């Protein structure tokens, strides 16, 4: 019995223990599952919220699109807010340079007191964020949604503000308010903060794009040589670049208005009338040449139209462009002068020949007299100079049309120089001018160039030197190879001539043949030098003997020849002392 009792007790103890252990397990698992279940629900809630947040962000993104209007974006945000936040009223405040705007949407009726409190809180928030007071600002206020009922004595229970930041600057505040207390959790604010932030970023990016593009356009307009003026529909100056201010002699840093233009242009150009034509009738106008302060302009007036994707045009204003054509007119004048000069130079000897013949035919000259011989010489000189001029003009037109040919061959530069020097020796002797050569040992026996055209350059240099050098002067023709990495040959005495190019004057990149014709002539005035190689503007120099006049075309042709060889031409001169003309031909 005892044993049975004992064993029964033991059995029941074991059973109880097992039951207890089981219960513990059951509870353990129960709680474990319960906890997991809660977590699952929480996770589900979380992901739902996330999906929702994403959906709203996406929707906002699409609706905000490429709008740059902060207010429009705020409207979109406030409009879609009620999908995930419960509120009594939502609003925003934005600041512009001259005023603040408050826009409130009431979801459930509230009192004026509620609205005022909300407004004050918004302004205070913006004030704190921007560190500025808005007492003196004009206020624009819009209230929409449910009606205002002052009998509802409910104050703001919960409220939060989200700042709107564009390009690092607070431009507005978004405010959500509710009559119930303690309603808004961190999560709600985070979502709204994210949305606003996303919108801000999008707008900031767009602003940046616009700023860069605007900057490019501004820089372009600012740096334009042409004067540019743009006015809006009310003739207010929107753009006036420095060039246009300079044209009408207006201080560049000052603000300009349309009347400054009307005053300066006076009767020369009816700017107001032309702008009106452009703004009202969309008419383009381009003026004839107009003279303003010593310069000539062509003034164009154009309507500024913007075409939207639908093809509708919208008028933004009109633009006036002042195109400086002074240079064209100057070139025109120079060309005319050049043509006149050529005609004159051709006509003079021809006319002389004609007049001599006239005299001979009229029997005024005895055929056996000295006078007759003199006239024959004049006829010879006249026809020779005319032929030279005709050849020069032909060469020049070939050079200009790019048809000038150089026939390069293996040739000996020393021979070419000696040939020309001996040719001019006769005239030099007659004028009692020394003509010497220096041919450096560095010169190769053969080099690649066109000997005929090089003779032409030498003819030009030598005849010029002879023309401008007086009795007992000296002309020195020197030739050497110049390597820009090294110096001029040392064994060559340059002191014989007063002016000789320095190494810096001869700009070559590779070893080149260098030929210098130096004289002790009258030299060339500094301000004439730049025109010497200009096709239509040769300097008018007075030769020593007065007999040999030139058109100066020879130098232009010489330049063309040197350049056709890949070389260069240049000169150094000192008035009253002498001149050195030189050319280079690169060695291959």
């Amino acid at each position, binding site marked *: 019995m005892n044993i049975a009792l004992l064993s029964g007790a033991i059995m029941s103890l074991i059973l109880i223990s097992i039951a207890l252990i089981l219960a513990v397990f059951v509870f353990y698992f129960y709680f474990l599952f319960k906890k997991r279940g809660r977590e699952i629900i929480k996770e589900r809630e979380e992901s739902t919220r996330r999906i929702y947040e994403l959906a709203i962000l996406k929707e906002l993104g699409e609706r905000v699109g490429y709008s740059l209007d902060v207010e429009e974006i705020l409207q979109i945000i406030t409009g879609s807010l009620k999908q995930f936040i419960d509120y009594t009223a939502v609003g925003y405040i934005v600041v512009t340079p001259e005023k603040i705007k408050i826009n409130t949407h009431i979801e459930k009726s509230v009192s004026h007191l509620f609205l005022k409190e909300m407004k004050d809180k918004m302004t205070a928030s913006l004030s704190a964020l921007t560190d500025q007071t808005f007492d003196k600002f004009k206020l624009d206020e819009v209230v929409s949604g449910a009606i205002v009922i002052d009998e509802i004595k409910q104050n703001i229970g919960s409220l939060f503000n989200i700042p709107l930041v564009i390009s690092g600057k607070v431009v507005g505040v978004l405010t959500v308010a509710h009559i119930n207390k303690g309603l808004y959790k961190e999560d709600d604010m985070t979502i709204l903060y994210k949305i606003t932030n996303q919108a801000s970023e999008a707008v900031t990016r767009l602003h940046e794009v616009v700023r860069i593009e605007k900057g490019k356009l501004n820089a372009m307009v600012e740096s334009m040589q042409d004067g540019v003026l743009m006015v809006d529909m009310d003739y207010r100056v929107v753009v006036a670049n420095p060039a246009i201010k300079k044209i009408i002699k207006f201080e560049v840093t000052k603000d300009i208005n349309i009347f400054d233009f009307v005053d300066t242009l006076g009767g020369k150009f009816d700017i107001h009338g032309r702008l009106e034509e452009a703004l009202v009738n969309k008419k383009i106008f381009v003026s004839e040449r107009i003279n303003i302060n010593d310069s000539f302009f062509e003034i164009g007036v154009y309507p500024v139209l913007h075409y939207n994707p639908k093809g509708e045009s919208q008028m933004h204003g009109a633009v006036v462009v002042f195109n400086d054509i002074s240079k064209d007119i100057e070139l025109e004048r120079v060309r005319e002068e050049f043509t006149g000069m050529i*005609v*004159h130079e051709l006509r003079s000897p021809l006319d002389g020949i*004609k*007049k001599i013949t006239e*005299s001979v035919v009229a029997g005024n000259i005895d055929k056996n007299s000295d006078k007759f011989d003199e006239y024959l010489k004049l006829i010879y000189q006249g026809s020779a100079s005319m032929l030279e001029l005709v050849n020069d003009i032909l060469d020049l037109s070939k050079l200009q049309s790019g048809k000038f040919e150089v026939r390069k061959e293996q040739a000996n530069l020393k021979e070419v120089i000696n040939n020309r020097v001996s040719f001019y020796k006769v005239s030099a002797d007659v004028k009692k001018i020394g003509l010497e050569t220096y041919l450096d040992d560095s010169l190769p026996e053969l080099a690649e160039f066109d000997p005929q055209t090089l003779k032409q350059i030498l003819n030009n240099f030598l005849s010029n030197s002879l023309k401008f050098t007086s009795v007992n002067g000296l002309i020195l023709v020197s030739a050497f190879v110049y390597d820009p990495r090294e110096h001029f040959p040392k064994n060559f005495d340059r002191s014989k001539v007063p002016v000789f190019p320095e190494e810096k004057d001869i700009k070559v990149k590779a070893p080149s043949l260098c030929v210098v014709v130096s004289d002790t002539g009258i030299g060339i005035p500094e301000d004439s030098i730049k025109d010497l190689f200009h096709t239509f503007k040769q300097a008018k120099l007075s030769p020593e003997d007065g007999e040999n006049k030139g058109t100066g075309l020879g130098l232009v042709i010489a330049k063309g020849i040197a350049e056709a060889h890949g070389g260069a031409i240049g000169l150094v001169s000192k008035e009253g002392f002498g001149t050195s003309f030189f050319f280079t031909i690169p060695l291959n």
Partner: protein
Amino acid sequence: MKKILIIDDDQFFSKTLETALPKERYELISAEDGEVGLEKLKSEKPDLIILDLMMPKLDGTSFLKKLQEDNDLPKVPILVSSNLSSVKKISDVMSMGVVGYVIKSDESLQSIIQDIDRVLGEDTTKGE
């Protein structure tokens, strides 16, 4: 006997004109540029100047300007003879108080002499 000063660097013209001018009526003095021309104007006191425009040193237009500016210089009728034929040039020069403008290559020596006769009042042609 009238004295004519020709200021021209074109030897053809001065020499042929000298040959063609009747020696019994005219004496011709020549100057090869404007500077020499000014000197000869003072020393020779000519009755007429035949002036070229394109010349070294002092050209025809500058010569005319000097005459206008300097009141001490004798007032002498000036006939411009040049091969420059642009209308602008001619009108510019005519406005400087010259008695005539002759485009050299368009006129024969004889017609130039007739112009000289007319200016100096030595009209020998039995004109209409």
